[in-house]
């Protein structure tokens, strides 16, 4: 049954359906509404779990790590500085191969301080060894959260469900919250074979010498690559049960014979769909929504791009001193295709800046150039900077 719910509220209800035994969190905008709603559910007896209000994100991540290691299904959520503060723990959780799910309510990173949305935070922990799934709307976030538990517990890898702060977390949308029975059918109780147990007292977190460290990294890397199958299966099974796909590894919207593609992560996909429908005079365009960023679905992406001549990567973060983060990976993934795909790399909507539909037209203009322009923040307004801060190589759009 579809209900109008705020994204955070929907996530809270969905988390409750997944029956985590331990939830720990530390407040940070824009994650707060999720945890506050969980607290309400717990207070009203609608959710049974140990909800621990810890003294930092570092402890939030650590606490759920301890709890998951002891065999409990856990949940936490954070954003921005919180993600950075817990980054050491995130690496640790993944390296220990402990299953768990967390929500990242994506937000910009300070300084300068910004409480608004972009995806620099989750990008900063890209290499932590977590599965990262990006959601383009709240229904996807709901469905992905449920799937995330199944993927995590099947692969023994932690999963970070990324949803844009405010844009999704604070937005009211009609959402279908599945019923408990459906979730219970889909998600069996957590039974962690490596859980700490006085009857089978193993030691977790040992010191590994150079003789075995490379093998540990190899195994972790391949566990992520192999998780692709589980991500696909989890979505397929969910679709059978609920009638909805949450976007599998990636999804494509647009005519199959289009030669221009735009690839995005998260909620700006919706904006681009609206723009495409507005500017019908522009060339046919495939809109590619990359849901699984880690593992990176190279094969699926190459298949989606096989007919393209130009692919614009529009992302919500950057690697200062180089440029696009996602675009560089996309470019690497698309090498040695039968016909070359030109990759155009832009950042947009940083620190919560709205993306106007006009951007769509501007993007198409970029495709017309003979040689793709270097990476830029496409909506930058240089006149707001002193001349000496424009940068010598900066293009004026």
């Amino acid at each position, binding site marked *: 049954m579809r209900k109008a719910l705020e994204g955070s509220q929907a996530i809270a209800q969905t988390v409750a359906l997944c029956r985590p035994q331990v939830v720990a969190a530390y407040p940070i905008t824009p994650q707060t509404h999720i945890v506050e709603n969980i607290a309400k559910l717990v207070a009203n007896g609608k959710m049974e779990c140990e909800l621990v209000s810890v003294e930092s994100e570092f402890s939030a991540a650590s606490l759920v790590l301890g709890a998951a290691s002891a065999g409990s299904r856990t949940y936490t959520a954070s954003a921005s500085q919180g993600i950075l503060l817990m980054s050491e723990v995130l690496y640790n959780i993944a390296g220990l191969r402990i299953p768990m799910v967390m929500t990242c309510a994506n937000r910009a990173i300070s300084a300068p301080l910004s409480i608004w949305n972009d995806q620099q935070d989750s990008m900063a922990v890209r290499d932590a060894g977590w599965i990262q799934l990006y959601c383009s709307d709240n229904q996807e976030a709901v469905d992905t959260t449920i799937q995330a538990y199944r993927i995590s517990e099947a692969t023994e890898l932690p999963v970070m469900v990324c949803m844009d702060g405010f844009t999704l977390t604070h937005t009211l949308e009609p959402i279908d919250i599945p019923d408990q029975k459906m979730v219970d059918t889909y998600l069996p109780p957590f039974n962690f074979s490596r859980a700490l147990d006085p009857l089978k*007292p*193993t030691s*977790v977190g040992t010191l590994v010498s150079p003789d075995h460290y490379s093998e540990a990294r190899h*195994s972790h890397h391949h566990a992520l690559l192999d998780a692709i199958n589980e991500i696909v299966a989890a979505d397929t099974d969910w679709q059978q049960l609920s009638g909805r796909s949450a976007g599998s590894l990636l999804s494509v919207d647009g005519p199959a014979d289009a030669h221009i593609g735009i690839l995005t992560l998260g909620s700006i996909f919706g904006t681009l769909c609206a723009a495409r429908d507005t500017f019908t005079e522009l060339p046919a365009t495939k809109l590619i929504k990359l849901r699984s960023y880690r593992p990176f679905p190279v094969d699926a992406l190459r298949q989606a791009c096989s007919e393209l001549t130009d692919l614009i990567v529009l992302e919500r973060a950057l690697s200062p001193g180089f440029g696009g983060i996602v675009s560089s990976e996309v470019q690497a993934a698309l090498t040695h295709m039968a016909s070359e795909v030109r990759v155009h790399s832009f950042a947009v909507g940083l620190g919560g800046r709205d993306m106007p539909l006009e951007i769509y037209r501007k993007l198409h203009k970029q495709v017309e150039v003979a040689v793709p322009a270097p990476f830029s923040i496409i909506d930058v307004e240089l006149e707001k900077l002193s001349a000496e801060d424009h940068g010598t190589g900066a293009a004026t759009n």
Partner: protein
Amino acid sequence: MESKLTRGGFAYPGTTLVYKTGSWRIQRPVHTHRNAPCHSACPAGEDPQAYLALLDEDKPREAWELLVSINPLPAITGRVCPHPCESVCNRGQYDEPLAIHSIERYLGDQALAKNWAYPVSPAAENAPHVAVVGAGPAGLASAYHLIRHGLQVTVFDELSEAGGTLFTIPDYRLPREIVRKEIERLLDTGISFKSRHKLGREIHLPELQQEYAAVFLAPGVMKSNEWSVDGVTPYDLHEGLHLLKQWSDVASLPAMKSAAVIGGGNTAIDIARILNRNGVDTHIVIHSSLPDPDKPAADDMRAIPREIEQALEEGVQIHDHHGVKRLILRGEKLTGIEILRMRKLPDEEGRLHRVAFEGTESILHVDQVIPAIGQVVDAAGMETLLDGKSYFSVDDWGQIEGKENIYAGGDAVEGNGGTVTEAIGNGRIAAEAIAAKLRQQQLPTINKSEPVHFNSLNMEYFEPSSRVEQVILSVEERTCETEIEGGISGLQAAHEANRCFACGNCLRCDNCWTLCPDSAVLKTNEVTFDGSFYVFDYDYCKGCGLCASECPTGYISMVNE
């Protein structure tokens, strides 16, 4: 590559056991049983800490059995031994030494009260037969140990009753009832006792040598040393030991008002106290010193300090550092003696000799002078063995030098201190040697290792605890008949046993087991091959030495690999 990397790198419990940290070690701890000072000091050869351990474990009978495996007469020695064990007790350097003699007496008295049987059985009829001459402590001890070793024994004594010198000890120190009970029980172990058999009279050495597999001689010292002042003696001179025997046999003494006893041994003290009790104004004149805990004991009177102390309490006047210069005689009757001060001083070669100081003369008005200056062996029947000497010369095992199968012990042996305990020790050692010889076995090596020094104990693990003191009758209550010192109770004995440091032995205190950072000390249920309750697991022992440092009793030492 044996192990496959586990997911997340987890490990299975206790798997470090595959890694033998013992390979790091350059020193290893070992259990080293070392003699406790009490053991080394005991003239009888007792290991007091060992029976104290059993008593501490509330096993009084086992404690007594262990005790009488060395000394069969604990009720006697517990009363009369000067207990050198207590003088060297390491606990004395911490608070007060253990009252070992009180425990020994307690165990002996318990055995008598409860009629515990000696843990020995009579010898087989075809076992070799040994003759023992003299039924004093040395002879009785040797007979008992010969029985323990499975030999047949016949003891000969010139008197009608076994006991020898034990009966010259006054009742207030050693009730004859105790002596009789102890000896009766001892003889009951299967010893054949022939009274009124005197060597050279009823029996003769060559016959004994012929009829018996071995002979142990313990005749005591029956002949008093000659005493006079410049060749002069009073006509009615009574010798100290003779008076003691007379007192012991018929409870009467020659009439006298005052007396000067010459000598500083136990005989001198005993007769002085008896005279004193009988209303005689009694003096002791002695060259050597009264014991003083703050001074070296080299020149001290030989009597047991405790007895000297009691004699003084009772009013005996002791003139130490004095010698007799002249007898004052009216006719042949003594009216006094002139004494003067003397000191031991080194001569030109550094040897000590006594020097009399002219001008220090004084007169003691006494009507008797009683020499108690020691005795020598009565050579009758043993002339060939003594060869003109006063005492027997024996080797470490009591064998008379140059005489096959003839052994000697007790006061008759040269260099002995004249204590009951030493005599018992002589008897035991000779019996061991005789038994080994008759079985054609090797003699065991005599353990002469250094006893555990106080500094090798760890005092952090003990708490101060006061020594049990026996009840002593006040001077007014003392008589000739009643024993002056009382025994201790079972509770007191247990308290005292608990004070023992168990020097050089395993106290089973768990310190090593508890404090090993490497769990390389394993506790055993039963006592181990080395007498402890722990085993070092050298596979894992890194050799840090903590166990040795913290062993309270000095039982663990570190040795190089």
